[in-house]
Structures are given as structure tokens and as C-alpha cells.
């Protein structure tokens, strides 16, 4: 069965500093990979996704992520965080068959921004 590991439960970053959130997946084939963000009391917003092709993908709000097959990783990065980036970030994987399959989520990383 596929699984997603986000090893950092909490991360604290100063405003303006760079950010990297880690995500590792376990899946036999090439998965479809996603990052979602959840602000307090809100739903899940898609930040970016990787299906195939260029392993560095750009998303909304200045985020990017890099797929590394050799490390089974899909880490999320941002060069300079803003206070509004404080939220919960979830990495998710989808069976590349897509369609009816549900996403498998990691446990999430809570991002705290220090002034």
C-alpha cells in the first residue's frame, strides 16, 4: 500500500527566510504527487502537483517542489516566506491510475512564521 511520510510535525521559520518541507512516499510505480495547504478553519487548497516531465514544478503563492525518484521525495520549497504562509501543509500521493482512487495524505507539517 502506498504511504506518505512528512517527518516534520512543526517547523518554525522567520519571515523572509527560505523554507523546505519534506515529503517521502512509498509507492511501486511513479505516483502522482500533490501538495495542499490548509489555513486555520479552511479547506484544502492545491499548491502544486507532479505527474510527469520536468521534476521541478511551480505552484501558486511562490511555492515550488522537486520530485526526486532516487530518494522517493517530493519536497516543497519557498525562497522567502510571508506571515500569510502560516498554515498546515499536506503532501499527498495518488495511484497513477487516477480516476476513482483516493489520495493518500501525510500527517502534515504545521508551519509557524516568526516575525
Amino acid at each position: 500500500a502506498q504511504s506518505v511520510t512528512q517527518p516534520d510535525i512543526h517547523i518554525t521559520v522567520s519571515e523572509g527566510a527560505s523554507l523546505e518541507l519534506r515529503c517521502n512516499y512509498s509507492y511501486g510505480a511513479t505516483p502522482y504527487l500533490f501538495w495542499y495547504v490548509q489555513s486555520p478553519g479552511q479547506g484544502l487548497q492545491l499548491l502544486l502537483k507532479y505527474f510527469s516531465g520536468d521534476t521541478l514544478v511551480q505552484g501558486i503563492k511562490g511555492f515550488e517542489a522537486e520530485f526526486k525518484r532516487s530518494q522517493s521525495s517530493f519536497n516543497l520549497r519557498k525562497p522567502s516566506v510571508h506571515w500569510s504562509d502560516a498554515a498546515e501543509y499536506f503532501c499527498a500521493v495518488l495511484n497513477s491510475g487516477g480516476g476513482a482512487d483516493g489520495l493518500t495524505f501525510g500527517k502534515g507539517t504545521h508551519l509557524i512564521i516568526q516575525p
Partner: protein
Amino acid sequence: EPEVTQTPSHQVTQMGQEVILRCVPISNHLYFYWYRQILGQKVEFLVSFYNNEISEKSEIFDDQFSVERPDGSNFTLKIRSTKLEDSAMYFCASTVIETQYFGPGTRLLVL
């Protein structure tokens, strides 16, 4: 931009009562999903629905749960006899094929 909507945003119910959570998926989407997130835990897949029938379901989705698309726009999740452990945020999602778009969720509290 089209969005998935969910009602109600919050619901409080007594243990043993039936609840129906409602979702309006994005209009041209074909696959619909329900997920739940127990407080402090990860988001978990419950069920997917395509062409008016269940496509996949997790072990969480037992006989007390059911889903329905009663008309051309709504997609509902029914919990027949709620338990305390059903307290969670329930998210609806929809997709054309791969990228799932989520609604804002319904927070269910079972007392």
C-alpha cells in the same frame, strides 16, 4: 473560478442520530469523493463515486455510511447512527480525472 461547496459548515448532533452532509461538486467534474480529518490527524479517504455508483471505498467506510447523488448537482454523505468517534471534519472533493479540488469542509461534532 468554480469551487466545491459544502453545507452545513458546522453540525452538532447527538450520538445515534442520522446526519447528512451535503456537497456541490464543480459542475463538469466526473468523480466525487469524501474524506475525513479527525482533529489533529491526517486527512483520510472514505469513498469515491463515479457514474452514480461507489468506485472505491476505504475500510473506514462501513455500513453506517452511504453516499448519494440525488440530483444533477448535489453529492451527499449520510451517517446513519453517529458515534462519538465520527466527530471530525468531512471534506468533499471532485475532479475531472486526477487533480482533486476540495470543499471547505463540514465540522461534525457528535455529543
